């Protein structure tokens, strides 16, 4: 478990963060995914790769979190005991700002495809979506990244 943790923690945390844009939530989601893995070890088919299984949990939980969070923000101003997190401008880059403008569902498939390098078919299975939906979310996500103009600057423009 220690080796698995060392091998996959950073990827899981990064993927979670790029979807939720919240460091504390990303930490919880990544941690929760590993705890789920520990719980399910006996049932896990060891012939199957661990990485996509873990990432499936991470991205689905990250999506759940963003849905809950957006609901929470819509329900008046909550007197939370927790202080607000720093605004994205302080912690991110142009790419981060561009990503943040995407809907969470599009962010998730962009991250799965371009950070974690899963194929659209694999992403469709992980998120239990039709492959066409994955492709359209990818296309729309990339279009919107290009539209912002920031993505080009961060991507090809910086080379």
């Amino acid at each position, binding site marked *: *478990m*220690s080796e698995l*943790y060392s091998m996959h*923690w*950073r990827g899981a*945390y*990064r993927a979670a*963060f*790029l979807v939720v844009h919240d*460091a*504390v*939530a*990303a*930490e*919880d989601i*990544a*941690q*929760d995914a*590993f*705890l789920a893995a*520990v*719980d399910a*070890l006996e049932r896990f088919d060891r012939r199957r790769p661990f990485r996509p299984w873990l990432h499936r949990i991470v991205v689905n939980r990250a999506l759940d979190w963003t849905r*809950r969070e957006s609901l*929470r923000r819509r*329900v*008046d101003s*909550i*007197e*939370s*005991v*927790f*202080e*607000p*997190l*720093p605004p994205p401008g302080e*912690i*991110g*880059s142009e*790419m*981060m700002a561009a*990503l943040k403008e995407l809907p969470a569902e599009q962010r998730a498939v*962009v*991250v799965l495809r*371009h*950070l974690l*390098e899963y194929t659209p078919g694999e992403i469709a299975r992980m998120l239990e979506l039709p492959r066409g939906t994955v492709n359209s979310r990818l296309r729309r996500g*990339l279009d919107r*990244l*290009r539209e912002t103009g920031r*993505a*080009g600057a*961060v*991507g*090809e423009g910086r*080379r």
Partner: protein
Amino acid sequence: MSDKSLARGLRDIPIPESAGVEERGRRIVEAAFAERQHPTRGGLEGRWRLPRLALALGLATLLAALLLSPAGAAVRDWVDEAITNGAPRPEPNLARIPGGGKLLVQTGEGPWVVQPDGSRRLLGDYETASWSPHGLFVVAAKGRTLSALEPDGTQRWSLSAGKRVAFPGRRVASPVWSPSGERIAYRSGFDLRVVAGDGTEDRLLASTIDAGIPPDARISPAYVPPAWSPTGADQLAYVTGAGRVRILDSETGAVLAAAPALPNVTWMDWAAGGRKILEASPGTLRLRPVWPAGHPTRPALGKARSLPLPPDASVVDAALAPERSLVAASITHWKEHGTYSEIVVLRPGKSARVMLTVPGSLGQVVWSPDGRRLLATWPGANQWLFLPLGRGQGRAVANISTAFASGQRAASFPRIDGWCCRR
């Protein structure tokens, strides 16, 4: 923009990490894995044995230090969510009671009944109240008057006692309805009295000062609340002025059993299917076995055993599970970095499980009627926390005092006077 450039962009985005984020996760995951490899007996309550309680407390100390740092806000969520197995952010309103059942909640304006869907009703201007065994009625006290009410506030009967029967702010002085529904025990001045469930046959059971009652039969001046046997037999346990736990037949007044009580006992609970009595003082929790000794209606008291608590812990509240020998306790520690509180589930000499660790002070801890959840109150955060014992996520509800505000009075944080009833 090519796929490669996008991938590089995503990989190169600087990701904020609070100090030690990876190591924190590693400790928790490795501890969970070790637990998995070497499971303890006893199901959920065996998940945290004592060394792990110590580990958790050490971790909590570290976290308490972190909470005071600039990264505190970020870490605070982690304290709540990691230690509590993923308790969510607080929901803004009490929309339902997780696990069902009805709550009886006492505020400065009086007792409120909270239905499973979260709807609530103020019963009237009473100072203290408790449920009848099946939640069909509420017994409420104000001044020198004891009343039985329907859950919509309609009064069924009332009696005027010679002395005060309500002691505001003191949960220990609430009248208590027996599980059979036949009797209600209540404090009146310095007396412990019993009245039938229909408001008749009111009589003295014990007193702190009555010269006609032998010293060992007098009730303790500290007034530890009496506890009914949960078996349905109308047997009542109370602490005498001589510092003994005594079980009486409330019908005949016959003494059925007696044993030395925990010194400075302040709270007593008789539950676990009638097999255990919990005795609590600010620094100690003890469980005492109760069993029928040769006669089904004549219980015997066994030797009490202390439950393991962290050193220097102060017990704020404790409750015995309805059917099992599990004690939930709300405890507070003072460390150099400040106060922090925990909800722990304990079993004598065997295992302990930390359910929740928070900075500041927690209040009450109450078992759900089916014994599968705990309700912990957190006055400083104005929240109730519903914690499942098994799998599943805890739920936090914010703005509790506002939920029970009405009229002109400023809303204060309410007290839970009961969670009713088993389905």
